[in-house]
């Protein structure tokens, strides 16, 4: 972003070399990233027999019907709706919870904040199999199993710690003059938060929102443990709809995977510039 600017047109040869140096590795990395995804895409257009006989090749005649079958058999109409609800609820809650917490950790002098940060790191990486059984017992007592809202609350608990860490480092990078001025003018902390910090920090919320959305959309373990009713199951469960006891209709699983990933890629495309901007402004700090 900076180097090319000063190099004059007189040094075209240097430019070419530099371009090659940049683009050859970029393309290699792109092949690494995209190659396996293309395999998935091709397999979604093959017949089951084709996948068995030639798992990595191009499809003979694209089987677009796989998508229709996958949509229907995977019950995507209801799982997409459920995942949308889960994601919206999760993102909204995580943004509020972690926004409040990050404000406290990043902008206020709170006793014990260092300990809280450590706690959040630990919570971020606690493995779910460790605590899922007692959590299930508790959720049953509270009448929260087999309900989307019960699952959303779990996502709040699981995804908020990382989101808070991200937002905190973002807030740490913001200048303090404005809010100090606000305080001197007599604004309470909530006013300061809502009218001064929030407008400044929305790029951070874009980052947190996207990461939370991604985490919720692709979540399988909790969803499959806590949801039993067919009509409440999310998209990740749709991906398992084509399994038999020891085999799998991979053409349908592949098509279902593509269907499931489209909304996420679209979301990233729409927000990627702000996503980067948000990350840029905040940086990540321990």
């Amino acid at each position, binding site marked *: *972003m*900076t*180097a090319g600017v*000063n190099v004059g047109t007189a040094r075209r040869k240097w430019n070419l070399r530099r371009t090659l140096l*940049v683009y050859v*590795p*970029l393309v290699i*990395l*792109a092949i690494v*990233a995209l190659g*396996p*995804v293309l395999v998935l895409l091709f397999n979604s257009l093959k017949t089951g027999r084709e996948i068995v006989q030639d*798992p*990595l090749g191009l499809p003979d005649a694209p089987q677009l019907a796989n998508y229709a079958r996958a949509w229907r058999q995977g019950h995507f109409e209801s799982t997409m709706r459920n995942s949308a609800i889960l994601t919206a609820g999760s993102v909204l809650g995580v943004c509020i*919870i972690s926004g*409040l917490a990050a*404000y406290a950790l990043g902008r*206020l*002098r*709170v*006793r014990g904040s260092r300990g809280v940060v*450590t706690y*959040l*790191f*630990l*919570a*971020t*990486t*606690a*493995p779910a*199999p*460790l605590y899922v*059984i*007692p*959590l299930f017992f508790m959720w049953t007592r509270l009448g929260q199993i087999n309900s989307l809202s019960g699952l959303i609350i*779990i996502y709040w*608990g699981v995804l*908020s*710690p990382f989101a808070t*860490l991200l937002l905190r*480092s973002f807030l740490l990078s913001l200048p303090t003059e404005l809010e100090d001025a606000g305080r001197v003018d007599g604004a309470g*902390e909530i006013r300061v938060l809502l009218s001064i910090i929030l407008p400044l920090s929305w790029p951070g919320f874009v980052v947190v929102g996207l990461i939370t959305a*991604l985490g919720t959309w*692709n979540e399988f373990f909790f969803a499959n443990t806590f949801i039993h009713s067919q009509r409440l199951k999310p998209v990740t469960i749709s*991906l*398992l709809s084509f399994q038999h006891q020891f085999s799998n209709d991979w053409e349908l699983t592949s098509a279902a*995977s593509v269907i*499931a*990933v489209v909304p996420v890629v679209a979301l*990233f495309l729409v927000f*990627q510039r702000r*996503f*980067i901007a948000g*990350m*840029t402004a*905040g*940086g*990540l*700090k*321990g």
Partner: protein
Amino acid sequence: MTWLNPGGLPRRQSFQGWLFLLPLMIATIVVIVLPTLATVAFSLTDWSGFGEVTFIGLENFRQLATDASFLQSLKHAVIWTAIFLTVPIFMGLLGAVLLSEAGPLQTFFKLVYFIPVTLASVINAHIWRSLYDPFRGAGAVLEGLGIPFLADVAFLGEKNLALYAVAWVDVWRWWGFLVVVFLAALQAINPELYDSAKVDGASWWLEFRHVTLPGIRVTLLFVVLITIVGSLNVFDYVYILTQGGPAGATEVPVTLLYKSAFQKYEAGYAAAIGTTMSFLSGLVLVGYLLLQHMGWEE
């Protein structure tokens, strides 16, 4: 007007701060801490996962200390950590540095690198299982194209290769995320620093060492920390791809925990594994904070 009082300001902020922290604390305590404490309690019992519970003190931990498969799984977690501290961070940095020079195609490459991040783990695992197949996978396809050196390599079947093969799948979906993280950090570096480096005639490497690296240091440290603690508790890709096999070659602590709890009906023992891993993660974090306190970060 208490905040004008030098002594009152921190105290009031501290109280309000804890009010703001309350929702977070409630959510995490209810969802993670209380169930984890219950698990710690179970680690002192011989609970099978259902039925009667008998208190057996530290017996599970005593057994764990001499359990060869647990010690081996710890070793694998350390190897995993080493892989994740190098490969994806290198790829992520490389991708980010190159992207920052990529001009108009930046968005395209960024999206391409990010796509694996968006795929669900079961899908990634399936794609790579096919690619790793010794008879129909990438090795066989390359052999058909005249590149024979990967033919007949059973990536997931050789006990010396399997852990690396599984780790690569996880690296593959993770490094693209780091590209975006590092790219953001790079863009936050003051461009004037690069300009002055140019004026001084600094080489590409010196520029990277003296401008880029210091500029993204805090981000890097954050990533390192998440990587270490995350690697100790790695689970999903290992479980989906190999369930810890072949012959325990990819067993990590959390796959052992999962199998003890749900296949062998030894929930008490599983809880002991989990408790030990939480303790180790805590140790790492405290170590990090001590270093930070000693002025390592600032």
